[in-house]
């Protein structure tokens, strides 16, 4: 891969990591359960981008399969948590 492109990719990985840390702070201080679940959801979607970035840097296609399983299961988990908050599980 091109040198410049690779450097830009590394920088964007750093930005994503910073974003994950800031979202995690919201997870810690969130006053109610809803705020924590929002932080969890946003963190999941952010790490989808990070996993795809690792797959591109390492040039291995199989890493993307982890991505879809991850997205599917976290979607189901958030729906179950929503049902729990609504008391209709």
């Amino acid at each position, binding site marked *: 891969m091109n040198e410049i492109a690779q450097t830009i990719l*590394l920088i964007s*990985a*750093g930005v994503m*990591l910073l974003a*994950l*840390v800031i979202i*995690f702070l919201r*997870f*810690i201080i969130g006053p109610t*359960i809803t705020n*924590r*679940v929002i932080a*969890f959801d946003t*963190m*999941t979607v952010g*790490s989808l981008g*990070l*996993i795809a970035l*690792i797959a591109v*840097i*390492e040039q*291995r296609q*199989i*890493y993307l*399969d*982890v991505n879809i*399983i*991850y997205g*599917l*299961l*976290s979607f*189901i*988990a958030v729906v*179950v*948590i929503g049902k*729990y908050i609504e*008391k209709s*599980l």
Partner: protein
Amino acid sequence: MKMELFKLILIIVLAVIMLASAVYAVVSKKTVSAVLATGVISLLASVIFLMLASPDVAMTEAAIGAGLTTFLFFIIIRKIEKQDDAK
């Protein structure tokens, strides 16, 4: 060289977040928050497994840790609450 340094930094930051999340799961007063913190731990653990070049373990960790245990815990907490309400 640049790649090695990048990987090292990534793993260290993710591990620090994991540790903080684990401490939070222990000290938090609410059960639900502790379960969510456990979900965050296995989320980041699967990213670290991926960095160490083992996609199959990462897949299992994502399926079991982030998905199954989280919603099993929630279903069971709800059942316990229902029993308490019935009393």
